[in-house]
C-alpha cells in the first residue's frame, strides 16, 4: 500500500541542528514561541519588540532577510549571519524573522525540524480566534478510530470470481479482455451505454457482482419484489462477462431503470452524469432497504457507496479576524469547472511572459486547483462571523477530507449564456492525466498550506487509503448540447478500447487523450493493478451460465 505521498519525504534536521538540539534542548524553541505572531492569513513571524524595527547587529540594516540567533537572540542580516557564527562558537542555528523558518549558518541553507514546526503550529493554533474551536485543526483532537478499510471484503472474493470465469481461450491467440462487449443503442440511449461500460469495469463493482454478492434468487426470496435494479445489473454483468462478443441489448435494464426514475423515462437524449447519479441512488435505496440500516452514508455498506463515497470539506473564513468554521458534505463524484486561466509550464521556464503569448491549456490539475482555491465570496454574500458577531466578508475553501475508492470527475460543460439567455456547451479541450495524485487536494494538504507547509501529521490521516489513482475509463462527448453522442474509452491491461454503442475497437492512447472528456473515472492504484492481473483468461464456452462449475484452467 502506498503510504502518504511517495514523491515527497519529510527532510531531516541537518547535523548542526541535531547537535544544537542535543546541547540546548528545546530552550531556544520555547523562548521563541512567545514571540511568534500570526498574521490573519496564517504566516508566523517572530516579533520580539512590538515597536522597535529589527536591525542587523553588524550593519544596522533592516532590509532583506533578518535572522535571530536561537542561542543568544542577536539579530543579523543574511550578509552578516556568517560573521555571527564566526564570532560566537556554537551559535549555528538561527530563525528567519519574517517567515519563522530555521536557518543553519554552517550549511548556509534552510533546515527543517518537526519539533520546531510543532512549536510554531501550536502557537498559531492557540492564537486563532476562537481557540481550538475555530477551524479544523481537529487533527489534534480527533481519534483515529474512524479508519475505514474500505477495500475489506471487496478484494477478498476475487478468488471466487477467478474460479467462475477462468477458462483458457483455445481458439484465438490474442483475445479481447474479459467483459468487453458492445451495447446496442435502444433509441438515444448512448448516455446509458457509456455510463454502463464505465461501471462494468469499475474494479469494486466488477468484483462485487462477479463474485455473486447479489444473488437474484435470494433477493427475490427476501424482498418479494418483482423489479430489482441490482438483479438487473447482476444479469448485465453475467451477460457482458459471458465471453459472447455479439452486442448486447440492455433492454431489461432500461425498463427497470425507467421504473425507478420515471421522471427520466423517455426516448430523449439525456445527460450521462445525471444517469450515473440516478443509478447510484437506486442502488443505494435498494440495498439500504435490504440491509435495513439507517447509518449515515459514510458507513453505508451498499456497493455504490463503498465504491464512490467521498467526503468534501468546506472552510468558511472571516477575512477580518481569521475565524473559520468547517462543514463536511458527502459526495459520490466531484464536479469541476473548466479552468480557463492556465499557462502551459513550458512557457514559464523558457522565456519571459509576454501577454500575447499566453496559451489557454486547461488541465485536470488546473481544474482541481480551481476547485480547492480559497474563493472570496462577494460582498453581497456576507456571512455572520461568530467571533466578530456581525456580517463580514468571507472566503470559502473546499478540500477533500476522504477520497473514494473510485473517483469520478465530472467536467461541467454546460453554462448559462447570458447573451443568448440559454444553455450553452463549453467545447474547451481538457488535458487529463492517466495517473493522478490527489494529495495536494486533501484537507490535510490544504490545512498544512495555511500554516506555511509545516511538517506535522494529522491523526486522521490513514495510510491505508491511497491518494494515487489510475484512470480506467473516460466518457467523451461530441456534438452539440441537444444532439450529441457519448462514447466510452476503457483502459484494460494498458490497452485502450473505444466502446461506441455496439462497436468496440482497440484504439491508440493518442485518440483517447485528444477526445473531449466529460467524465473521468479513476481508481486507487493498488485496485487498478490487482484488477488488471485477473484479466488473463477469457471464457469462450457456449454455456452462458457463469455459476456452473467448469474445468479449471491450467
Amino acid at each position: 500500500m502506498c503510504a502518504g505521498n511517495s514523491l515527497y519525504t519529510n527532510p531531516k534536521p541537518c547535523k548542526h541542528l541535531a547537535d544544537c538540539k542535543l546541547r540546548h534542548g528545546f530552550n531556544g524553541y520555547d523562548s521563541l514561541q512567545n514571540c511568534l505572531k500570526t498574521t490573519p492569513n496564517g504566516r508566523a513571524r517572530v516579533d520580539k519588540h512590538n515597536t522597535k524595527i529589527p536591525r542587523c547587529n553588524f550593519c544596522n540594516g533592516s532590509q532583506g532577510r533578518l535572522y535571530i540567533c536561537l542561542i543568544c537572540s542577536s539579530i543579523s542580516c543574511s550578509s552578516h549571519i556568517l560573521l555571527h557564527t564566526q564570532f560566537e562558537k556554537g551559535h549555528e542555528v538561527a530563525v528567519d524573522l519574517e517567515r519563522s523558518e530555521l536557518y543553519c549558518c554552517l550549511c548556509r541553507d534552510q533546515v527543517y525540524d518537526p519539533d520546531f514546526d510543532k512549536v510554531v503550529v501550536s502557537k498559531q493554533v492557540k492564537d486563532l480566534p476562537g481557540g481550538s474551536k475555530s477551524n479544523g485543526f481537529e487533527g489534534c483532537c480527533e481519534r483515529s478510530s474512524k479508519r475505514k478499510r474500505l477495500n475489506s471484503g471487496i478484494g477478498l472474493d476475487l478468488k471466487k470470481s477467478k474460479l467462475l470465469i477462468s477458462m483458457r481461450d483455445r481458439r484465438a491467440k490474442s483475445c479481447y479482455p474479459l467483459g468487453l462487449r458492445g451495447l446496442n443503442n435502444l433509441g438515444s440511449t448512448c448516455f446509458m451505454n457509456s455510463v454502463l461500460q464505465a461501471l462494468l469495469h469499475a474494479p469494486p463493482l466488477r468484483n462485487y457482482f462477479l463474485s455473486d454478492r447479489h444473488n437474484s434468487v435470494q433477493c427475490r426470496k427476501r424482498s418479494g419484489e418483482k423489479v430489482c435494479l441490482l438483479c438487473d445489473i447482476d444479469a448485465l454483468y453475467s451477460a457482458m462477462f459471458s465471453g459472447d462478443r455479439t452486442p448486447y441489448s440492455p433492454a431489461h435494464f432500461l425498463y427497470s431503470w425507467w421504473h425507478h426514475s420515471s421522471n427520466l423515462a423517455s426516448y430523449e437524449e439525456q445527460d450521462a452524469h445525471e444517469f450515473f447519479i440516478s443509478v447510484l441512488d437506486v442502488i443505494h435505496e435498494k440495498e439500504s432497504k435490504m440491509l435495513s440500516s439507517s447509518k449515515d452514508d459514510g458507513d453505508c455498506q451498499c456497493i455504490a457507496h463503498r465504491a464512490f463515497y467521498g467526503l468534501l470539506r468546506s472552510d468558511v473564513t472571516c477575512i477580518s479576524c481569521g475565524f473559520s468554521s468547517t462543514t463536511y458534505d458527502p459526495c459520490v463524484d466531484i464536479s469541476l469547472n473548466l479552468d480557463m486561466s492556465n499557462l502551459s509550464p513550458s512557457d514559464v521556464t523558457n522565456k519571459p511572459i509576454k501577454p500575447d503569448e499566453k496559451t489557454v491549456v486547461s488541465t485536470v490539475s488546473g481544474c482541481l486547483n480551481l476547485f480547492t482555491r480559497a474563493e472570496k465570496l462577494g460582498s453581497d454574500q456576507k456571512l455572520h462571523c461568530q467571533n466578530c458577531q456581525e456580517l463580514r466578508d468571507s472566503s470559502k475553501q473546499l478540500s477533500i477530507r476522504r477520497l473514494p475508492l473510485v473517483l469520478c470527475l465530472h467536467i461541467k460543460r454546460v453554462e448559462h449564456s447570458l447573451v443568448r439567455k440559454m444553455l450553452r456547451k463549453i467545447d474547451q479541450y481538457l488535458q487529463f492525466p492517466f495517473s493522478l495524485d490527489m494529495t495536494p487536494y486533501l484537507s490535510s494538504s490544504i490545512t498544512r498550506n495555511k500554516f506555511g507547509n509545516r511538517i506535522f501529521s494529522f491523526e486522521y490521516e490513514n495510510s491505508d487509503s491511497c491518494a494515487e489513482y489510475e484512470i480506467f475509463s473516460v466518457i467523451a462527448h461530441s456534438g452539440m448540447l441537444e444532439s450529441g453522442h457519448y462514447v466510452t474509452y476503457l483502459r484494460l491491461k494498458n490497452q485502450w478500447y473505444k466502446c461506441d454503442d455496439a462497436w468496440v475497437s482497440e484504439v491508440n492512447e493518442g485518440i483517447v487523450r485528444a477526445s473531449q472528456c466529460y467524465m473521468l473515472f479513476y481508481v486507487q492504484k493498488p485496485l487498478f493493478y490487482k484488477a488488471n492481473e485477473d484479466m488473463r483468461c477469457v471464457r469462450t464456452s457456449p454455456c452462458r451460465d457463469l455459476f456452473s462449475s467448469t474445468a479449471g484452467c491450467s
Partner: protein
Amino acid sequence: MKHSVNRPPTPDAAEDQGKEPTLQEIINIKLIESGEKERLMELLRERLIDCGWKDEMKAICRAYIKKKGRNNVTVDDLVHLITPKGRASVPDNVKADLLQRIRTFLMSAAL
C-alpha cells in the same frame, strides 16, 4: 613616531547612528510604525498570487532545482536566482497600485 599615534580614530558604531537618516529610511520607519507596511505587504502578496507571479517564480525555482539536483541547492541560491527575475516581472498595474497607496499614505501622514 609610533604609527599608533598617527592612526586615525576608530570609527565608533554610536557615531554612525548619529548620521542623518535618508528619506527612504524615514518613510520606511513611518510605514512600519503605523502598521501600514504590514497591510501593504499583505495586499502585495495577494496581488502577486492573483496575477500568477508567485506561480511563475515557483516554476522557475522548480526547474532550477530539477537541473541542479535537490541536494545541491540552498535557499541563498534560489533567492539570488529569482530576485532579479522577480523584480523585473512584477506587472505594471501592481506596481502602480502599490505606489499610489504609498503616496496616499504619505500625504495623510504628513498632515
